[in-house]
C-alpha cells in the first residue's frame, strides 16, 4: 500500500483534522447502522390491521432452535461445497488443457481454441447453465458443475498461459537442449513454474467459483441459497425471510472470507519466496509477470467476477 508515500507524515494540525474526520465518519456510519437496525426492528402495521413484529423479534428467529432447520441448512452448505469442489476439479483440468492448446505451435489447434475460449468467456455463466440444463437435459447439478467448470477453466487457462508467457525463455530452451520433447518441456519444466506463480490467481478464481455456485438458485439446484431462501422460507412462511437471509449471508461470508484469506496467504508466501526472503527485498518483481498477474486478476470481477 503506497498510502504513506502519497502524503506527508501528518503534523499536529493534520492529525487533529484527521481525528475529527474519523470521529465524524464513525458517528455517521454508526448512525446509519442504527437507522437500519431501528427500521428493521420496528413493528409494522399490516394491511389487515394486524401489527407484524419487527425483524429482530424472537418470533422471527425461533425456527433456528429447531435442529432440523440446521440439518437442512447444513445439507445446503454441503451441496454448495460439493458443486464447487467438482467444478473446481473440472476447471483446473480444463485450465491446463486450454493453456496447452492455446500455446500449441500449430495454428490449426491454437486458433480454434482461442475462438472457443473467447466464446466461453464472453458468455454469462448463467446462460451456460441454462443451455446445458435445457439442451442436454443433464439435471441441475451437472448444469452448475459443467458450466462453472468450463467458464472458470477458460479463465484459469488464460492465467496459466500468461504465466507461461512470462517465464524466461531460457527455461524452455534449457529443457529442449537437454533432449526433452516439446510436450515434456511444457509439462515438466514450464507448467510447474507457471502454476506456482499463478497459484494466488487460481485460488482467487476458486473463490469466485464458490460464489457463483449461488447461481444454482436460478437454475434450480438446491444449494445453500436455494435451500434457505426458497425451500425453508416457503416451508416456514415469509415472516422468516429476513432471518434466513441474514443466516445465509453470514454462512457465505464465512466460507468466502476463509478461502480469500488462504488466497492472500498464498500470494504473500509466493511473493516472499520469489524475492528470496528479506535480503533480496529490493530486487524488483519481473514486470512481465506483474502485468500478467494484474490482467489475469482483473478478469475476476464476479462471474468472472467476474
Amino acid at each position, binding site marked *: 500500500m503506497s498510502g504513506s508515500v502519497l502524503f506527508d507524515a501528518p503534523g499536529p494540525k493534520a492529525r487533529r483534522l484527521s481525528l475529527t474526520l474519523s470521529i465524524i465518519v464513525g458517528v455517521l456510519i454508526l448512525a446509519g447502522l442504527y437507522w437500519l437496525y431501528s427500521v428493521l426492528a420496528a413493528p409494522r402495521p399490516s394491511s389487515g390491521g394486524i401489527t407484524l413484529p419487527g425483524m429482530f423479534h424472537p418470533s422471527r428467529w425461533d425456527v433456528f432452535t429447531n435442529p432440523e432447520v440446521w440439518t437442512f441448512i447444513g445439507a445446503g452448505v454441503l451441496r454448495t461445497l460439493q458443486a464447487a469442489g467438482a467444478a473446481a476439479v473440472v476447471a483446473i483440468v480444463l485450465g491446463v488443457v486450454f493453456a496447452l492448446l492455446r500455446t500449441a505451435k500449430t495454428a490449426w489447434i491454437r486458433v480454434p481454441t482461442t475462438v472457443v475460449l473467447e466464446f466461453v468467456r464472453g458468455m454469462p455463466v448463467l446462460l451456460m447453465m441454462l443451455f446445458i440444463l435445457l439442451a442436454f437435459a443433464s439435471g441441475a447439478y451437472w448444469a452448475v458443475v459443467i458450466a462453472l467448470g468450463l467458464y472458470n477453466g477458460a479463465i484459469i487457462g488464460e492465467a496459466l498461459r500468461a504465466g507461461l508467457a512470462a517465464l524466461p525463455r531460457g527455461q524452455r530452451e534449457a529443457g529442449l537442449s537437454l533432449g526433452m520433447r516439446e510436450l515434456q518441456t511444457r509439462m515438466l519444466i514450464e507448467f510447474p513454474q507457471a502454476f506456482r506463480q499463478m497459484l494466488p490467481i487460481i485460488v482467487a478464481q476458486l473463490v469466485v467459483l464458490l460464489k457463483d455456485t449461488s447461481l444454482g438458485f436460478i437454475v434450480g439446484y438446491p444449494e445453500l441459497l436455494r435451500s434457505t431462501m426458497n425451500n425453508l422460507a416457503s416451508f416456514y412462511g415469509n415472516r422468516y425471510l429476513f432471518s434466513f437471509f441474514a443466516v445465509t449471508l453470514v454462512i457465505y461470508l464465512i466460507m468466502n472470507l476463509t478461502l480469500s484469506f488462504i488466497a492472500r496467504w498464498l500470494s504473500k508466501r509466493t511473493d516472499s519466496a520469489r524475492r528470496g526472503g528479506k535480503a533480496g527485498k529490493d530486487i524488483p518483481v519481473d514486470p512481465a509477470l506483474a502485468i500478467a498477474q494484474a490482467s489475469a486478476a482483473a478478469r475476476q470481477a464476479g462471474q*468472472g467476477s*467476474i
Partner: protein
Amino acid sequence: MDVIIDNLPRYLSGFGMTLQLLVVAGIAALILGTIIATMRISPVPSLRVFGAVYTELIRNTPLTLVLFFCALILPYLGARLDYEVFAMIGLSVYTSPFVAEALRSGINGVPIGQAEAARSLGLGFGQTVGYVVFPQAFRMVIPPLINVIIALTKNTSVAGGFFVVELFTIGKELANANGNAVVAVLLGVATFYLLITIPLGIFAGRLEKKWVVAR
C-alpha cells in the same frame, strides 16, 4: 434460425434492457468505485478502514445474494422502486469494489519515486494524486476497468432471476415456448451478449499490448 428471426423484436427489447442495466450500473459503479478507491488511499484512517471493510464484505458476497437483498429486503426498508432500479442498485454496489481494486492496483503500480518527487515539491495529497500519480496510473487502469465492465455485462444476466425482463429472461421464456429449438434460441441470446463482450475484450487486449510495449 427462424425462431430467432421471428422473435427478433423480443430479443431486441431484452437487449435494450440489458444495455440499460449495463450503462446505468456501469456509470454508478465507476463513481462509487472511485469514491471507495479514494477512501482506501486517503490520509484519514477511518476512511481507509471503511473502504477496506466495504471492499472485503461486498467482494465476498455472491451477486445473487446482493440482488436478493435489493429485491426483497430493500422494500422492507421503505424503498418503493421498480425491480429494474433495484437490479441497477445491486449491480452497481456489487461492481464498485472491483472498480476500486482496479483503480488502486493501478495507483500502486506507479513507481514510488513519482509520488516522492511530487511531495518533495510541496504538493499535498490531492495534488499528488490528481496531478502526478493518477494521470500515470490511468493507462494501466483502463484495461482492467474494461474487464470489470465485461464482467458486469455478463452479470446483468443474474438480474433476470429477480423479476427484471432482460435478455436472459427473454431467452428462458423463448426456450420454454420453443422446446424444439432450444439450442438456436439460446445461441441467439449468447450472440447478443458476445456482441458486447467480445469487442470490449479485443479493445482491452489491444490497449494492454500497446502499453506493455510502451514501458
